[in-house]
């Protein structure tokens, strides 16, 4: 097989088919698995339809022979009208870049069982657990298929279309009770507890039949009676959920041999609000302010991914000025986010407050600009389908906007980066704590579907802005920094590098902002009641500061609400290899390793 593919490589003499890699991969798969792989012919859908029994073979061939080695996203979809459960896999090639190959697998809705892809891509671990938790799709062969976002005693699978929340009003907003006869009520008064918050059958919080905690600790090599003859105890410790260094409510079940970590299991979901279910009740535009609240440190980039996904469905165009403003905002967000991330990383390493606060001073200035432009410092809600909400303000903090930005970009931020460099890069304590700690190899980084700085610090030069350019990134001159050691120190350095590259981008963007002054910032007259012209699926992905942020949106014709709305959350997926990274290190290193991944629980738990 591999020979055949080699023959198929583009040749220099120009005779080889200059097919794009996705089409070529699809053709190869169809040829090799004629019974199991077909084109997805549904209206508005792309990619392949794969039958569940051949999924593992297809995925293996895709990874090993065709070079689509990166499983970016796993999405469960409830196709209630066809009585099917569908799982959508987005796969990419790290080395070639380009767009992805999308695999759709459909199984019977009443008995949704699929083979697990965790043996091929361990990065599918949390995502499959999420699909099990929220949609009840069973993945055969998954080593640890437990609930992940809802609590262990939760009844039902909330993303199923026929599942209703505790206080259910209607399927879609706007709700009829608001107008014209609006009589106010507080939903919490109408909430009937006991309906969904009840123990499922056979679940006894203190009983023996189904003990969650035992379940949690199984798989950990830990026996109670090993003490005799041993010099050290093995001990299971809960770090979190209330812990100052977990960056929010996040829990790690750690098994220790003395001070050394033997095993670590992340437990999340304490901030879960079923963003996706809310998203499916919302109209398209109503989702925008909700995306702000995912990774609340980078609301501008969250907006960007979502508007890209919806714009693909709408077919709208974006005026030039709006694109430049978007890049301006998104790159400033990246700097903000990395400043925050590094400040906290240093905090976790024991450099309490000082470096963090120096970074914050500059971050505050960027937030001032966001506030003047968008009306809010963190919940910006600034982008709209086909443009941005408002033009740039004339003044920021009583200084002319352009001169404010120039001073910020040419003087302030470079100075604060240099200062950060001086404070930390060669600091002996920082180096001792971070070099060689929490190593993730390139192979693992790819296999575990990590993204963003974590992936790039491990030697994979992959950035959505270059791999599949959106907006005007193709025309901008910047490098994708890459580091090869994959330890905490490299993850620190890569963020420093990225901030400097963002500055390069910003320097190129400013002249365009000046040149397009007064040009339109939104395409057409914005509508609040959008109806989708066509059915279909769309995946909008952007390089969020924390990694690839993707929105998978499907819709039916003339619908005003998304049929399925899924977020590929980089913070969430980057946590998959946390246990592996911590193994063999000391307790204090856990905090630093977690800090170097840079998570925001609003996005992890969704």
């Amino acid at each position, binding site marked *: 097989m591999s020979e055949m593919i080699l023959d198929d490589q583009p040749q220099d003499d120009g005779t080889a088919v200059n097919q794009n890699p996705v089409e070529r991969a699809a053709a190869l798969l169809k040829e090799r698995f004629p019974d199991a792989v077909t084109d997805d012919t549904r209206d508005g859908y792309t990619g392949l339809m794969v039958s569940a029994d051949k999924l593992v073979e297809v995925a293996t061939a895709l990874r090993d022979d065709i070079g689509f080695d990166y499983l970016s996203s796993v999405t469960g979809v409830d196709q209630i009208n066809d009585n099917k459960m569908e799982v959508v896999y987005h796969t990419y090639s790290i080395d070639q870049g380009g767009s992805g190959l999308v695999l759709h697998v459909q199984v019977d809705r009443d008995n949704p069982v699929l083979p697990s892809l965790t043996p091929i891509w361990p990065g599918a671990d949390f995502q499959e657990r999420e699909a099990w938790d929220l949609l009840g799709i069973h993945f055969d062969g998954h080593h640890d298929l437990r609930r992940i976002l809802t609590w262990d005693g939760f009844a039902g699978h909330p993303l199923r279309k026929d599942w209703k929340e505790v206080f259910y009003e209607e399927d879609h907003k706007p709700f009829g009770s608001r107008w014209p006869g609006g009589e106010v009520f*507080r939903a919490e008064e109408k909430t009937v507890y006991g309906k969904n918050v009840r123990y499922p059958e056979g679940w006894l919080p203190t009983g023996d039949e189904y003990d969650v905690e035992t379940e949690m600790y199984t798989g950990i090599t830990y026996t109670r009676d090993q003490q005799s003859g041993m010099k050290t105890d093995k001990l299971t410790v809960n770090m979190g959920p209330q812990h100052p260094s977990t960056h929010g409510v996040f829990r790690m079940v750690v098994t220790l041999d003395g001070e050394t970590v033997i095993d670590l299991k992340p437990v999340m979901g304490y901030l879960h609000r079923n963003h996706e279910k809310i998203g499916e009740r919302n109209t398209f535009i109503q989702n925008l302010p909700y995306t702000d609240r995912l990774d609340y440190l980078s609301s501008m980039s969250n907006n960007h991914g979502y508007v890209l996904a919806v714009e693909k469905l709408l077919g709208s165009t974006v005026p030039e000025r709006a694109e430049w403003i978007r890049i301006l905002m998104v790159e400033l967000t990246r700097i903000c986010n990395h400043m925050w991330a590094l400040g906290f990383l240093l905090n976790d390493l024991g450099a309490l407050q000082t470096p963090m606060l120096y970074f914050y001073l500059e971050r505050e200035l960027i937030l001032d600009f966001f506030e003047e432009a968008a009306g809010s410092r963190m919940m910006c809600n600034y982008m709209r389908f086909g443009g941005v909400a408002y033009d740039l303000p004339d003044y920021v903090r009583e200084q002319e906007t352009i001169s404010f930005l120039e001073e910020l970009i040419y003087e302030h931020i470079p100075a604060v980066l240099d200062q950060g460099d001086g404070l930390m890069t060669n600091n002996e304590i920082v180096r001792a704590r971070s070099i060689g700690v929490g190593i993730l190899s390139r192979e693992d980084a790819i296999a575990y579907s990590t993204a963003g700085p974590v992936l790039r610090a491990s030697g994979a030069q992959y950035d959505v802005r270059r791999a599949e350019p959106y907006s005007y990134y193709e025309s901008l001159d910047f490098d994708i920094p890459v580091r090869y050691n994959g330890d905490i120190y490299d993850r620190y350095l890569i963020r420093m590098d990225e901030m400097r590259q963002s500055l390069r981008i910003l320097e190129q963007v400013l002249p365009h902002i000046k040149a397009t002054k007064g040009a339109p910032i939104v395409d057409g007259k914005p509508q609040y009641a959008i109806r989708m012209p066509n059915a279909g699926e769309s995946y909008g992905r952007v390089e969020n500061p924390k990694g690839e942020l993707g929105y998978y949106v499907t819709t039916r014709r003339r619908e005003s609400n998304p049929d399925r709305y899924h977020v590929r959350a980089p913070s969430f997926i980057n946590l998959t290899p946390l246990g592996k990274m911590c193994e063999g290190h000391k307790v204090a290193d856990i905090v630093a390793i977690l800090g170097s991944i840079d998570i925001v629980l609003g996005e992890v738990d969704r």
Partner: protein
Amino acid sequence: MYGLGILKGMAITMKHFVDSYLDDIFWAARGGRYYNDEALKVRQGLKGKGVKTVFYPEEKLSVPERFRFVPFLVTDDPPPGQKWGKDWCTSCGICAKVCPPQCIWIERGVQPNGRPKPEPNQFYIDIDICMNCGFCMEFCPFDAIKLDHDYELASYDRTTAHIHDKERLSKPLSYWREIAPKKAAAEAAIRDHVDELKAWKKANGRDADPSTAPKMTEENTKQLFYRGEYY
């Protein structure tokens, strides 16, 4: 040399430490560093040096015109002796439909003959649920709902105090002019312009050459928010 990196870092911290005192001395001759509007302005901006702390609530950061907090309803300026004037809201329901968390309840007014009356009987916003997104303001076709700048809403009882009714929500136009002067002026100019256009259309008939229609000044066009040129 081992430890050089640490020393370098300490030097940077030291510089900040000294800078803060230098800044104190600089402002000591100019009316003080704190509780001084002039000094606060500098401290907030790019030129600020030294300690950046703002002593809230004695000192407050200024908020920009576009700042969004919970909504209020615009009314005409009140006649003497009254708190509010006529509602601008026509109870068209657009804000209640676009509101993402659905925290607006509007009871539409009814005329004696049973037909809808273009003003709300009641208007409620649950400010606990409001996510300050600004969509209601963006899409209201009558400039009747605006987002407030008053962010000090702490209260002892959230169950009653946090559901704002029409009385609590209504504020006169002069208030909006005060907190967002540029925006309010531009909106007024746009409303005048739309009226002018309507009058022009009436006078010249449907087939008139649109290029001779009255134009909006560039200044106002620039101030336009989101909704496109005309609405």
